[in-house]
């Protein structure tokens, strides 16, 4: 079995892990911002009437 430098290995895990966590969340942030823009632009009027009816339902 080859000798493995565990510390170097752990540091590599750290770079990989933090890199993926960050890129995942940054990707998510951009997608969410885009999604919010699209929804506010195209669906917002419909959305408002929808939430109004659902509020009525919960009250009734």
């Amino acid at each position, binding site marked *: 079995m080859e000798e493995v430098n565990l510390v170097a290995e*752990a540091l590599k*895990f750290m770079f*990989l*892990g*933090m890199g993926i966590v*960050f890129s*995942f969340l940054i990707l998510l942030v951009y997608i969410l911002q885009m999604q*919010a823009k699209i929804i506010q632009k195209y669906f917002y009027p419909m959305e408002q009437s929808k939430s109004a009816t659902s509020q009525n339902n919960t009250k009734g």
Partner: protein
Amino acid sequence: MRNKTILSIFVFVLLLLFGTTSSANTIVEESNETTQETQIIQNNGYHSKTILELLESFYNKTGINAIINPKDGVLDSHGHEMSHFTQGYGRIIMILVSLVLFYLAIKKNFEPLLLLPIGFGGLLANIPIANIAGPDGFLGIIYGFGISTGLFPLIIFMGVGAMIDFGPLLANPKTAILGGAAQLGIFGALVGAIMLSEYTGIFTFTLEQASAIAIIGGADGPTSIFIANALAPELLGAVAVAAYSYMALVPVIQPPIMRALTTVEERKIRMPALRKVSQLEKIIFPLTVLIVTILVLPDATPLIGALCFGNFARESGVVGRLSDTMQNALINIVTIMLGLAVGSKLAAEQFLVTETLGILIIGLVAFSLGTAGGVIMAKIMNKFSSKENQINPLIGAAGVSAVPMSARVATKVGQEADPSNILLMHAMGPNVAGVIGSAVAAGVLLSIFK
């Protein structure tokens, strides 16, 4: 008068009937027993015992004897032979550890919903002879179907998803970055654990074990259990106890770090009010998260998928009953079984080792690093954003999940500097992003070792 006589005759007949049937039953049973007994006598050569012999053989089966006189060849729940120490004093120490957990849960109110069942599971698992944590004992059975399959943490995650309102995150998505930075706790602790075992020689952790310990820094009980079970099941008991204890200690561990890393001015930063998030955005959110996870990191989909399902059921608004069950009844049932089963791993031979001490130390380091990571990231982000969009660095500390405790801690520390500055909703953003972040970190670790 006549009625009474009729009644008494009726009762008499009834008694007679039941009497005959039951005595008939006993006769049948007796004859069965006698045949069985004769068989046993033929097989084992049963001989008549004096009352002294009976008492002695009974004493040999008592807990007192099992603890005072450990025997060779007693097997633990994994089928390994137990040392005399773990059979005797080990059990007593572990029962004391369980009592300490009760104290923390009842008197100190530290995560009582988990520490109480875990403590009781530990108590039951350390009963000699009964072997409750063994593969045929009831704790062993619960452990077998719930934890070694990874099922319980996922069901808990479903309930957590149904409980969380992702609105604050949707209103200010960039706070998600803080939830990512707090995962530094996990990976920093991983490096720390390996360095400890390489350079000090007190502890010896493999990479798998170090990863399972480091995930405590995610401040997320179910994720810790999920990963510990997948990578280092032998450490599960200590990891789970450390994770939940430190989560309970969030209000003690975090504030000094937060104060040390921020100035009073920074703590006073006010953040603009969050915009209103539409229902549609909330419904689409779990699907978006799931799609990104599927594309980037399928290894995290069991955890994220369960979380998204719970949240989808919550926000869809049409399955209120299911969402209600997930966040109340289901999560409570699973918490009971999860706690007991995790507690069953508090056996002396696994817990009373130097590694446990290492786990407690590394867990604490992981928590502190995660808190620091979130706070520092918020300060870095402030350097790059405009005057109006400044982030109060305290909410970075909420990036270690521990929903909603760490968000409350951020609010409290913020109010110490400026009592009128309520940070709670702002802190919920990084807080729930931390849940996703630690699930992603868990997925990365799984993907490395799979």
